[in-house]
């Protein structure tokens, strides 16, 4: 590309050091350096500094990784350590987010649709969170369930989905338009998250069968069981979610 006769520029000395020149130009620069001690001294310094910087930064590559670093499927224990440490903060931010979420939920049509919408918004808001996905982690499951049951005024359960590949991450209290709501979050080995949204006084009493809805790419099965409405939400196919909903329903219905 560059003719041999062209003078070597200052910037090309760096490209030379960094191996960014083609072979022909590399030879030109080598020849240039032979007759130019000042340029040769620069290149020697650039090289020496480059090697020394590499040496200075090399230890970072072999440092053990802090446990808090990782993709969303980092081990549950590591996640819990982080969450426990930030528990006080979580309570505050959790409340604030819940309140904001409630504001978004107002425009709802039928009672069932309202619950679906609330569940989808809560799912979309909290499942991407790595640091603060839940207020109380699964390591304090008993406390979590008691607390949420007290606030919602009904006995809740966190279903066990381990056989289906999902482990409890934890849960949080949310504010729904007409009262409290709870969200339990689960995660599989691949980092996929599933949420079970529970709300009191879903607008109608009794028992309903599963209903299915999709909103913003989130699949939801919802049903009503006495004073509680449930919505199981996840970004997956209807059939995948249905299998999980069956497991949840069987456990909650006793």
């Amino acid at each position: 590309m560059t003719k041999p006769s062209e003078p070597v520029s200052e910037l090309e000395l760096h490209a030379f050091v960094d191996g960014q020149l083609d072979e022909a130009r590399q030879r030109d620069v080598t020849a240039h350096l032979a007759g130019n001690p000042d340029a040769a001294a620069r290149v020697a310094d650039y090289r020496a500094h480059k090697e020394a910087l590499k040496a200075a930064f090399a230890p970072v590559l072999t440092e053990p990784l802090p446990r808090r670093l990782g993709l969303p499927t980092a081990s549950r224990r590591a996640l819990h350590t982080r969450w426990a440490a930030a528990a006080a903060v979580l309570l505050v931010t959790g409340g604030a987010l819940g309140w904001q979420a409630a504001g978004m939920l107002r425009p709802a049509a039928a009672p069932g649709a309202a619950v679906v919408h609330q569940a989808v918004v809560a799912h979309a808001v909290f499942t991407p969170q790595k640091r603060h996905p839940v207020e109380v982690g699964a390591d304090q499951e008993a406390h979590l369930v008691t607390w949420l049951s007290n606030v919602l005024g009904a006995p809740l359960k966190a279903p066990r989905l381990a056989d289906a590949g999902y482990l409890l991450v934890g849960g949080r209290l949310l504010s729904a338009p007409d009262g409290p709501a709870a969200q339990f979050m689960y995660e599989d080995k691949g980092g996929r998250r599933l949420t079970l949204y529970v709300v009191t006084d879903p607008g109608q009493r009794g028992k309903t069968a599963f209903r299915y809805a999709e909103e913003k790419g989130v699949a939801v099965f919802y049903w009503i069981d006495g004073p509680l409405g449930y919505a199981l939400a996840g970004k997956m196919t209807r059939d995948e979610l249905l299998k999980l909903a069956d497991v949840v329903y069987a456990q909650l219905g006793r």
Partner: protein
Amino acid sequence: MPEVRQLIVDQIPHLRRYARALVANREQADDLVQDCLERAWSRMHLWRAGTNIRAWLFTILHNLHVNAARRRHSQAGPFYAAAADLPVPPTQEDELNVRDLWQAFARLPEPQRAAILLISVEEMSYGEAAAVLDIPVGTLMSRIHRGRERLRDLMADPGDNPGHGSRGNRLGRKR
């Protein structure tokens, strides 16, 4: 998906190293890496398989850092002061002193540190590094030039490098 996870996980040490050149405080640097991982994971659908995942991850980390720095209204700030504890291997008496070079590096303006780290330490091509920093290759090269020249000056004249004046001139050149 598992392969992609592994590709990302493989880059974590490299992302940490780059973050340490941007933010000297280890905790803050790791926060930046974690933010980068979360952002990347939530945007995996935007990454096209087969394209350069390293450049993609470094770009995310760089943008997060730039945005955070903009929010804090400070760029240069505490980097130099916090830079003292980078682990460096012991150096031979007659070799170029790595710790002094690191101290000099820490005095560079951040854009020059970023460019030099990507090229000299991470050994990216000029094109790849320019893409990460979202600047033209010419701008990248001039940052490298100014940064390396400044390093030469600082190493040749430690008096210009507060805190290390007492060590004298032997730190300058290898020969």
